[in-house]
């Protein structure tokens, strides 16, 4: 049997209603309350313990509550955490989302939460946790438990899930292909005519992060400056096999005090633009020659003798964000105060 732990709030764990909302994290043996119904539905999975916490306690002492709950959780050596169903209850849903997300991200324990699509816990989970869709209130319990059981079994077995509506989970944000009933052209016409009639709809959600510009560098003539690029500029022959698209990481190369990037010794492997002009003069990608001149003229302090490179082509935002953090951490350690980031 696969060992599972179930998380409930004070009410569903039978510890009391609103008057018990300040209850600190508690461990109970086996399944409790809705956990009994869930256990009856589960095939090959045993609920070995129930963790419970008062809604107010979790909200007001989140870090402490999480730490205590994770201690309880680890001690059970579970292969699965199930949290809820929280239905439309906001405080309960937030706790379910947080403990599920933390268990999976920090401890690597697969987690399933359950709540209504409008529960604020859904935003907290932000696609990182599988959430079973439930009704907005406890009247949906009977429908929720078997659905949760099937999803829990899928998580444990590694079965690939079908579409959200079919399996009964809330969409997490992955974009999967399917064949629509009409070609895109006809769907576009329908959308446009509806928009002209005042009904705006879209098949793709927008919304991009806008990165606020940092404050200017105080005194460039004293600053240590580094060169970073997403132009796929690497030593000739691409010795470390930087991909032409969807790079999984970044690379760093020493400049060795060179005055410029010599044509024939560097090339771009970026798959998103015509690299002819870049390869004719790699300084067009990584402007080492100009920066050396600016240093010689005293307009820039010093140049960091390492440049960083990756291919910014089809890179998921999450991956690009990670590259940025990792590169920035190294540069900060090296005392770099400013970066010239060349994009393509």
């Amino acid at each position, binding site marked *: 049997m696969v060992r599972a732990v179930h998380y409930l709030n004070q009410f569903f764990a039978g510890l009391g209603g609103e008057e018990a909302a300040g209850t600190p994290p508690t461990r109970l043996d086996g399944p409790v309350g809705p956990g009994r119904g869930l256990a009856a539905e589960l095939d090959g999975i045993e609920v070995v313990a129930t963790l419970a916490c008062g809604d107010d306690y979790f909200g007001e002492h989140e870090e402490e509550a999480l730490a205590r709950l994770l201690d309880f959780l680890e001690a059970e050596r579970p292969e699965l955490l199930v949290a809820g169903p929280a239905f439309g209850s906001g405080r309960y849903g937030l706790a379910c989302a947080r403990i599920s997300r933390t268990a999976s991200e920090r401890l690597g324990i697969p987690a399933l939460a359950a709540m209504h699509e409008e529960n604020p816990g859904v935003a907290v989970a932000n696609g990182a946790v599988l959430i079973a869709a439930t009704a907005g209130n406890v009247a949906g319990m009977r429908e929720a438990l078997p659905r949760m059981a099937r999803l829990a079994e899928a998580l444990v077995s590694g079965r690939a899930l079908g579409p959200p509506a079919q399996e009964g989970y809330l969409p997490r944000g*992955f974009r999967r292909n399917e064949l629509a009933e009409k070609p895109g052209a006809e769907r576009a016409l329908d959308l446009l005519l509806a928009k002209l009639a005042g009904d705006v709809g879209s*098949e793709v959600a927008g919304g991009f992060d806008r990165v606020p510009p940092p404050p200017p560098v105080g005194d460039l003539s004293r600053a240590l400056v580094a060169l970073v690029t997403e132009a796929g500029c690497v030593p000739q022959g691409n010795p470390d096999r930087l991909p032409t698209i969807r790079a999984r990481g970044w690379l760093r190369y020493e400049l060795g005090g060179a005055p410029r990037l010599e044509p024939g010794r560097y090339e771009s492997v970026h798959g998103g633009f015509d690299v002819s002009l870049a390869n004719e003069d790699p300084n067009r990608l990584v402007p080492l020659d100009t920066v050396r001149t600016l240093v010689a003229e005293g307009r820039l302090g010093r140049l960091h003798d390492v440049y960083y490179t990756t291919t910014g082509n089809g890179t998921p935002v999450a991956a690009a964000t990670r590259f940025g953090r990792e590169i920035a951490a190294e540069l900060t350690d090296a005392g770099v105060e400013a970066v010239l980031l060349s994009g393509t």
Partner: protein
Amino acid sequence: MAWELASFPAELMAPVPDLEGVDVQVVRGGEPVRLTHVLDAVEPRARPDGRSAFPLQGCAGEGRTNRLDDVVVFSCLDFPAEERTLHEQESVVDLAGPGAVLTPYAAGTNVVLTFGRRNDLGNEELEAWARGTTLAVAEELARPTLAAQSADLERFELGAVDPSLPAIVALVQLSDLGPLYYQFVYGVPAGAADLPRVVDPAELLDGAVTCGEYHWAALRNPTIVFQRNALVRALYREHGRRLCFAGVVLMRGYEQSAADKQRAAAAAAETAARLGADGAIVTTDAGGNSHTDVMLTVRACEEVGIRTTAIVAEMADPDSTSSGLTDWVPEADSIVSAGNAEELVPAWTPARVLGGDTLLDGAPAADPRPIPVRNYLGATNQTGQHALTATTW
């Protein structure tokens, strides 16, 4: 203008001519065949009045054109890598297996031309040879229709309609990123074709635009997508019913500077406004920075009061919940997804490979391994030709 398109059965197809330096094979949809290094797909057409089916002068979209139903000519060519200016351009078509659904236009008879390398020609000349030959073969194959009775006849004409219907324009983006990466308008690269330019919608359906853009395969608009363009056809069909089809504007994509991008977007919006557009469908050609062109065009149109819907493909990592859009503006509140080009198609073993046995990344083309949708020709084409879309899981 009025234009008639006559359809003829595939059985009328002429024998495929012998061509020096070109391997010619005829295969049918459903056969376990994979095509590799595919450049373009073209529907065989011929004109009874003797004019070219792919004219170099502005004379498409008038009179009558004959087409062979369910026949496609594919051109395959593996450009010498050392001269290739862009790195990623693998392009496959599977006639069976899980990838076949991505190229629905290959379900019938497929005439596959594999162009050999020639030491006397550079990449640009190789491309011109392959493109010219492919269009000529497509015309040759349809020639027997000139002496036959058509099975079906469609008439394309835009009459006067109820002036209260919303006026809709198609803004068709054509990219130009230099040789091997441009679309052709009457044989002229998009960047030199005086875009934006208003054309009669029938011109687009009648061979005025041909494909020479060989970057991301799935995001490519092969010639057949213009010949059979579902958007223009839908607009004709709805003309006088739900809308007034106010015209087609060919516009430039892949401008190379921010200022040029802004200018191209503003010029396209201005052209649509001159046509009296209340609304515009903005289509996309290729990926990456052409998506910025689309977003800027949407913004420019909305700013002059033209409501827009854009058609774009997504490139979302299958393992990530990050957005699959390269660019986005708040005005783009109405977007049709042509599918997620980054999704993987399950492994499949073809019994036969045409076009070249080795993929550009060095892997044997017959190896059963997952291939991203982005490598399937026209799979997520962004004129709305296919039903492929992406939904959120």
